[in-house]
């Protein structure tokens, strides 16, 4: 695994905008960054990332069985009690899931360490599945990269296959928060793929979802029987329409049971069950005591690096403010992100259905990866 500087393709920004990638620059700073790429060997990809991803995914699924029947664990994960039965029913009914992303600290040697699961509303999907793919094809066509260079990225193929096999109710609706162009971009991409798989897709702004007598309805008042929502379950379970979730005849993607796996509390539970697994870091529910050097604290429910506090082994404290301070916390042993040049590098490894489907790399100038962290493409070349 190495980081290699390269020249951006001339005109890539115009191309990005022409394919709906409108968030390639974030507050004036690059988000998509093709001034460099990462190179992996095939063995690194297959043995250190692909195989562990599928194994960890199965371990996490196995854990769901333990959680849904344990009041203690549901309480530890701060799942509101009125929804316990519904979570259990959603799992028992084997409601299908579409995708997830696990984040790793990995430097090319030794086991990748699982930092967390983003199993409810993972993003950076378009960047990974489409834009990174096109970048490689362009670089091959221009002869900038040698023929034979590949990429661990079957994300779009696997998503299309999943959409064609999920047998979704039609029309199938997709919802995201109105104010977020990034989330709309993710949803547009998923709708595009679903459309190619033959799904009859409709978009609705999340805030426009309606309720008639406990049934979710669209803008015309017709029942919504299938809904992809790019909005966290933990929010939905505490908002005005929370009770609608219990009564509405709607198949959700991701299904309700995914609220267990997108929760950072899954990390101590994984450690309890599989203590010593090479891809796991020691993790515990937080007792509020002060952090030891080499540990970090993060909320059960948070995203994009918010509300994280970490103490390096040298005793240097790093904190990241954020809006997610209203639930419990966990602590996890620090697996500092590897540093390439002056960049801290995080690997997001995708799962579609139950298969590993590719990676996307994020870089930041700090040890904490955030929503503004740069997305950098990668190749496989032996």
């Amino acid at each position, binding site marked *: 695994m190495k980081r290699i500087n390269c020249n951006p393709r001339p005109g890539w920004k115009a191309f990005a905008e*022409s*394919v*709906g990638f409108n968030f390639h620059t*974030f507050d004036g700073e690059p988000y998509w960054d093709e001034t460099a790429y990462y190179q992996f060997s095939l063995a690194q*990809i297959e043995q250190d990332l692909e195989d562990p991803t599928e194994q960890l995914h199965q371990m996490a699924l196995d854990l769901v069985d333990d959680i849904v029947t344990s009041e203690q664990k549901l309480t530890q994960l701060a799942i509101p009690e009125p929804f316990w039965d519904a979570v259990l029913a959603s799992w028992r009914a084997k409601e299908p899931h579409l995708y997830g992303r696990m984040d790793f600290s990995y430097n090319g040697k030794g086991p990748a360490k699982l930092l967390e699961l*983003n199993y409810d*509303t*993972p*993003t*950076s999907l378009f960047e990974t*599945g489409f834009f990174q*793919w096109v970048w*490689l094809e362009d670089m091959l066509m221009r002869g900038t990269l040698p023929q*034979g260079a*590949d*990429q*661990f*990225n*079957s994300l*779009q*193929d696997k998503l299309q296959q999943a959409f064609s096999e999920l047998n979704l109710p039609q029309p199938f609706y997709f*919802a995201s*928060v*109105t104010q*977020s162009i*990034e*989330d709309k971009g993710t949803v*547009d*991409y998923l709708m*595009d793929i679903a*459309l*190619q798989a033959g799904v009859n897709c409709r978009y609705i702004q*999340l*805030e*426009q*979802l*309606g*309720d*008639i*007598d*406990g*049934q979710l*309805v669209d803008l*015309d*008042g*017709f*029942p919504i029987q299938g809904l992809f*929502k*790019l*909005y*966290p379950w933990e*929010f939905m379970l505490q*908002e*005005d*329409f929370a009770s*609608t979730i219990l009564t509405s005849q709607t198949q959700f993607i991701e299904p309700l049971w995914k609220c267990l796996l997108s929760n950072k509390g899954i990390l101590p539970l994984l450690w309890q069950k599989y203590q010593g697994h090479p891809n796991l870091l020691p993790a515990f529910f937080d007792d509020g005591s002060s952090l030891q050097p080499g540990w970090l604290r993060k909320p059960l429910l948070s*995203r*994009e690096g918010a509300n994280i506090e970490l103490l390096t082994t040298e005793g240097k404290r790093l904190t990241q403010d954020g*809006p997610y301070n209203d639930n419990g916390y966990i602590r996890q042993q620090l697996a500092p992100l590897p540093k390439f040049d002056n960049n801290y590098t995080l690997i997001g490894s995708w799962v579609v259905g139950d298969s590993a489907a590719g990676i996307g790399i994020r870089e930041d100038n700090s040890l904490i990866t955030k*929503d503004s962290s740069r997305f950098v493409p990668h190749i496989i070349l032996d």
Partner: protein
Amino acid sequence: MNKQFKRSKTARLIMMVPAAGLVLAGCGEKPVEVQVFNTPDECAAYYNPPAECKAAFAEAKALHPQVAPRYANKQECETDFGIGQCESAPVLAANNTETAPQQSQQSSGFFMPMMMGFMAGQMLNRGGMASAPQQQTASAARSPVPNQPLYKSRDDRSTFRTATNTAVASQPGTTSIRPSAVQPKAGSLARRGGFGAQAARRSSSSFGG
């Protein structure tokens, strides 16, 4: 080369790329002919088969409580539709259609205008031509326009309007309309805005992660 690639075989976009985008419904939509009447008898008087008139009327009547605009009180309804032209609206079970007929007897507390006529989308013999059963094939292309109730506003008693207030004709008989303009929509008042509060409270560029 026998190598198995680790990347997608293709990555194409069909919706996000405007140049290759889909033709949107509505552009170049062809108008279709429909008929509008005050009553089934009037329909039959226009040389339509009485049984089909009755059937179209019955469909429209059944749709009426589902699509009629709803008002919180009678006065507001009568302001739009005229004194004595409103009735109480039944409860609708949106997620349980099987029990809907019984429940529809029950008042929801809302008011709706009375049905003043109906639109027949899939007529029948062509209005005005009493010729025999027609060479029209059995299931001749189902009309894109559903049979539906029509209403008349307080200040314009001659114009037939759909439940969504689209004026469709000023007299009984055949008229020409764009199908997308007369698609029935549920008239029940949906509560909205029940999701999204957390997003508004926690400003962030994304609610994924």
